[in-house]
């Protein structure tokens, strides 16, 4: 049991580090595209680690499935939201004729 506990704590801490990295990126990166990149990449990885850490502590199979489902749905949601936001910004920049904000 204690090994599982230690593993769980380690994984959750690792997830926390990735969340911290993503937040730093959100605050410090210069443009929306890189900020989106920091948010989606780092946070999804962080959430994955936290979910893995919590999976080590589950008591039955249904809790396990719910945790995996949460991670999966968050992945689908954040990756498509990221694309939609980036696409919207790109379309607006194209519409205005600003080539420097295209991220090209």
């Amino acid at each position, binding site marked *: 049991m204690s090994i599982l506990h230690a593993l769980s704590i380690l994984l959750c801490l690792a997830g926390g580090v990735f969340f911290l990295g993503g937040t730093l990126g959100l605050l410090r990166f210069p443009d929306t595209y890189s900020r989106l990149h920091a948010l989606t990449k780092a946070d999804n990885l962080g959430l994955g680690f936290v979910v893995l850490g919590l999976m080590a502590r589950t008591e039955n199979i249904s809790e396990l499935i719910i945790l995996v489902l949460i991670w999966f*749905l968050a992945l689908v949601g954040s990756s498509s939201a990221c694309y939609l936001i980036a696409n919207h910004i790109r379309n607006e920049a194209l519409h205005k004729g600003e080539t420097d904000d295209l991220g090209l």
Partner: protein
Amino acid sequence: MIWAFDVLLVLALIGVAAHIIWAREHFQAVVLFITFGLLLSMAWSRLNAPDIAITEAGIGAGLSGVLLMNALKSGSASRPGLSNKVLACLILPWACLMSLLLAWAWDAALIGSGLGVEVLAALPHAAFEYPVTAVLLDFRTFDTWLELGVLLAAVFGILGTGFRSGPQGRPDLKPPEPVGTWALNILFPFMILIGGYLLWLGAFAPGGAFQSGVILAAAGVMLWQSGRPCLAGVPFFWVRVCVVSGFSAFLLLAVSSLVRSQELLTHPDSKIWILGVEYAATLSIAACLVILAENCITK
């Protein structure tokens, strides 16, 4: 001495209300409306209701005032922005009153425990095991009925003015978006499932008609955003039936309780009655919110 203040307050309320109705300019009316909200919140605090006073000051005077000001600015482009002097005259008393009320409510919250004890004592007679749902649908049915009425009135307003609608009186469809469609295909079944689950859960755990309705509405808005007919795919007759179903279910319950010569909005002991009302309310909330979103989201 305090009764003189009360009389003054009442006179001021009536006077300001009359001024709002007779105000020539919209701007003047909005400023008076905010003043009216502040006076009204003082009246509520004189009636020993700190929670309503705070709500009135925050939403009635503050938020509605800002919204009205904003609407005024976008309505007439020539009007210059609010001068700093007028703004200070409005914000300063508002902030003072708000902080006083908050301090008082903090005190009151420490002393009284509200109606929690009474609710828990009456819970065995309710149709629901979960206290929040029991309060919303069983003990304070009238409030919930009126809330659905407010939602209905908003939808009537939007449908009546044809705000940003397409050629057939419906909002235009968005062009389909590949990634949005992909996400929708995965998320939509889950949203319907979770909406239904929350509705079922409301009887004995956090959940219920409002939460479920919001999730179903979000599913509907996603459907519409990804370029598919959401409510447009349903005959308009049935959309209207969905929109009024919640309000009418409460109305039917009220009428039936009168026919059975009981108190208004009471129901027989079986759960079917109140569950029917809750399900109708969910449908209604979802349909109303989708209509509001379809008509208010800018392209």
